[in-house]
């Protein structure tokens, strides 16, 4: 019986393989004959996801582009199409939603409740809401494939992993595409997925893996600030060359719902043509528009509690946060208004009486948001960081200093040498920070004129202090949808139809090796950082390290400490550092390799050297290569939550 069974499965496997192969053939045939029809850009945002596409067949000089309206549940039983898919998952109790109320146009019962419905239901039941999964992907010390979200959910709630959540958002977008464009197989189109510039190699690899798991094997990754710049270039319809010149340094500031992402792009000359080089990216800063709404709500709450003498319940604060967000937008949109009344209505069916009323004034708004988040500080200021109070192991590492301008100042100061190797960029000798000459904004927060102006004022005050000309703001970007649009346009650019930003890896990478020093009793062995991948490694290149040989024990996992530097550009492969400042090198999660014992004896020591490659997808791959027979083993990034790191 078991034999029969085994036989059967084998046959099934063969059939599957065949059908897969024939599918691949079909896809290839299609590609050969006409190439992919669309270039699809997916912005997997912390709070919203957007899918945009360019019709490659119809686009020539004019790009034909659209944003796909994503069908999604907005409440039990109600489906609506929206341009943005909120990146939330709600894990309902089995008795919470009746059968058939969660149907989508393409399925009777989706695996997860994704989108507007999740955000709506989760507002009232936060213990079942998965939010900010993307920030968890880049959170050191957490195993992203372990079911840990919602982080503050009780044990009874069946949790999901940050990786699964990313998969679910992608799956929803893929399903929506298949439903809306059944003739254009998404697996046969060009697909670009955006990631924060600050994502580490492990987070990039996880994103690429999630894409592969929903059938997007061909998807490539693109950094969000680059994508925003592509979108701006596309929007200018060829006019962008008149707005930037050789020698310009473009600062991209992307303040989204949950994160702030910074990048610097230098404009150089290449045989008479403008060339764009992404020269630096910032750290992963968990600070965004949601923090602003919360800050407003807590300020108003304090005012209300002082007036009424009663403490506000959690639902009242939540309702206040919503009201504050709307009031903020109204005040920012209409400079004539001085204050907006806020009402927190009773939850019961009697509406009149029992409602709390207060107001948000323009002064408060300016005080809290403009002064609180964009303070006027000298460029020498650093973000304030306090030692973490205990019991934070399961939370996200939110930025401690809300002053975005301080984070920006620290970034520009740290990257003062970012353009040293470019002949076209001339920085004055006395410059204490990298002088941007143009600024591009992205993210919903900067739609507010007041905030955008303040940010420009602060940047220009730094420039003026060093007698540099003011930076100019690059106009005409769609701050909400630019990242997805830019990603779709990037697919078009890759066909050789527009200017491409030169990027490569945004950091140099190192493994920690014990230095050959005599051991000192009572002291841990000194560690040296060995550079295995230099800064700016381009897609499709590989760098090997044949001279540094490690002995790996077959069958036993071996771990390396792993470091990244966003500022050491001069290090070549094989450079050993025995000293570095905390600013220069940032420790990432450990990497791990296990040599399988097939064909070898367990316990045998195999001499290997390391090799780093940047794939076409845009992820970093590390291999151990046997010195004996050239056999290769992949080194895994995703070994988070190791005993030491947590």
């Amino acid at each position, binding site marked *: 019986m078991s034999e029969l069974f085994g036989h059967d499965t084998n046959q099934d496997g063969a059939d599957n393989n065949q059908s897969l192969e024939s599918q691949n053939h079909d896809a290839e045939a299609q590609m050969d004959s006409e190439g992919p029809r669309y270039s699809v850009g997916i912005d997997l945002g912390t709070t919203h996801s957007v899918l945009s596409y360019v019709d490659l067949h119809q686009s020539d000089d004019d790009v034909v582009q659209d944003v796909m309206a994503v069908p999604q549940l907005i409440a039990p039983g109600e489906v609506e199409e929206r341009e943005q898919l909120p990146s939330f998952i709600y894990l309902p109790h089995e008795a919470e939603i009746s059968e058939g109320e969660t149907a989508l146009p393409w399925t009777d019962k989706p695996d997860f409740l994704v989108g507007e419905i999740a955000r709506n239901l989760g507002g009232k039941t936060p213990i079942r809401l998965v939010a900010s999964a993307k920030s968890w992907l880049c959170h050191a010390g957490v195993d992203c494939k372990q079911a840990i979200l919602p982080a503050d959910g009780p044990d009874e709630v069946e949790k999901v992993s940050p990786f699964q959540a990313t998969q679910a958002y992608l799956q929803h977008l893929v399903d929506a595409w298949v439903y809306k464009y059944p003739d254009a197989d998404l697996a046969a189109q060009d697909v670009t997925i955006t990631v924060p510039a600050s994502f580490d190699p492990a987070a990039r690899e996880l994103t690429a893996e999630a894409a592969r798991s929903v059938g997007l094997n061909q998807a490539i990754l693109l950094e969000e600030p680059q994508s925003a710049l592509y979108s701006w270039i596309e929007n200018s319809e060829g006019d962008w060359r008149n707005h930037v010149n050789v020698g310009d340094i473009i600062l991209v500031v992307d303040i989204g719902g949950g994160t702030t992402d910074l990048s610097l792009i230098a404009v150089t000359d290449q045989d008479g043509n403008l060339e764009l080089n992404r020269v630096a990216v910032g750290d992963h800063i968990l600070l965004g528009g949601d923090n602003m709404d919360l800050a407003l709500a807590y300020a108003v709450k304090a005012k209300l509690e002082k007036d009424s003498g009663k403490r506000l319940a959690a639902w009242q604060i939540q309702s206040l946060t919503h009201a504050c967000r709307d009031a903020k937008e109204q005040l920012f949109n209409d400079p004539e208004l001085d204050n907006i009344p806020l009402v927190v209505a009773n939850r019961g069916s009697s*509406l009149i009486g029992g409602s709390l009323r207060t107001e948000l004034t323009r002064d408060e708004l300016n005080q809290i948001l403009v002064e609180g988040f964009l303070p006027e500080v000298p460029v020498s200021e650093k973000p304030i960081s306090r030692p973490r109070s205990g019991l934070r192991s399961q939370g996200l590492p939110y930025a401690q200093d809300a002053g975005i301008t301080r984070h920006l100042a620290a970034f520009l100061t740290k990257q003062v040498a970012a353009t040293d190797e470019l002949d076209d960029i001339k920085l004055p000798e006395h410059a204490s920070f990298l002088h941007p000459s143009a600024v591009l904004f992205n993210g919903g927060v900067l739609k507010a004129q007041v905030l955008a102006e303040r940010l420009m004022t602060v940047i220009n005050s730094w420039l003026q202090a060093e007698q540099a000309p003011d930076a100019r703001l690059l106009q005409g970007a769609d701050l909400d949808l630019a990242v997805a649009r830019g990603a779709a346009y990037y697919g078009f650019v890759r066909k050789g139809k527009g200017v491409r930003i030169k990027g490569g890896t945004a950091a140099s990478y190192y493994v920690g090796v014990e230095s050959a020093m005599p051991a000192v009793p009572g002291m841990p062995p000194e560690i040296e950082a060995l550079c295995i991948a230099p800064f700016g490694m381009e897609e499709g290149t590989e760098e090997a390290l044949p001279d540094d040989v490690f002995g790996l024990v077959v069958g036993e996992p071996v771990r390396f400490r792993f470091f990244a530097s966003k500022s050491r550009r001069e290090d070549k492969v094989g450079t050993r550092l025995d000293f570095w400042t905390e600013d220069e090198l940032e420790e990432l999660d450990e990497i791990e390799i296990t040599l399988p014992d097939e064909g070898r004896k367990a316990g045998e020591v195999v001499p290997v050297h390391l090799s780093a490659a940047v794939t076409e997808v845009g992820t970093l791959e590390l291999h151990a290569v046997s010195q004996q027979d050239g056999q290769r083993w992949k080194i895994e990034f995703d070994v988070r939550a190791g005993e030491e790191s947590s």
Partner: protein
Amino acid sequence: MNNVYSIDLSLRPTTFDLWHVCLAATVVLLAFILIAVLLSVLIGHRRCSRKAEQARQQMVENEPETRVVEKIVEVPVEKIVEKVVEVPGPAPEPVVLKEATPEAALQLLGMLQKEARFIDFIHEDVSQYGDADVGVAARVVHEGCKKVIDEHFSLATIRQETEGSKVTLAEGFNSAEIRLTGNIVGQPPFTGTLIHKGWRVTEFHLPKLTEKHDPKIIAPAEVEL
């Protein structure tokens, strides 16, 4: 006395004998007969009532004077049909009135309740409260209604002139778009004062509903655990 039948309900028959077969067959047969009878009654009733309905409608259309018939619902169906047959001449085309889809209306109510607490507000006894309290609640309602309308409807004014200005309507103006009032005499072109500029929905979309969704529940009761 050892022939006495003892009753033990916990016992189960271990053999399936002829008597059991007969018993089962009888049960199935009776059930079948019952269903058949019920079905035939149901179908007969349906047919009758449909005929009666048709007859009644035709009569109402043809001769409004005989409305009295409508009240005599108890009259045997055949009779009414006979009467209809007696009516001379071809029946005129029935006027088709569009039926408003109740689901869209319920959906809109649901959205207004969810975002604007519309039903809650309408059900309040406003006379009990002062203007200040009503004003506070009105803000909630206004804000929410605005959100619902803005999200689901695109609106445009029908006339772009400022209200109160003089407008001239040429011959053949669309009387559905423009309603004349007051001293309506003579022939177009008409000249008058624009009282209200009018609204037109240029575009709208409502959420789609899953098959099992009950739009009559415009706000579920909420229980916090």
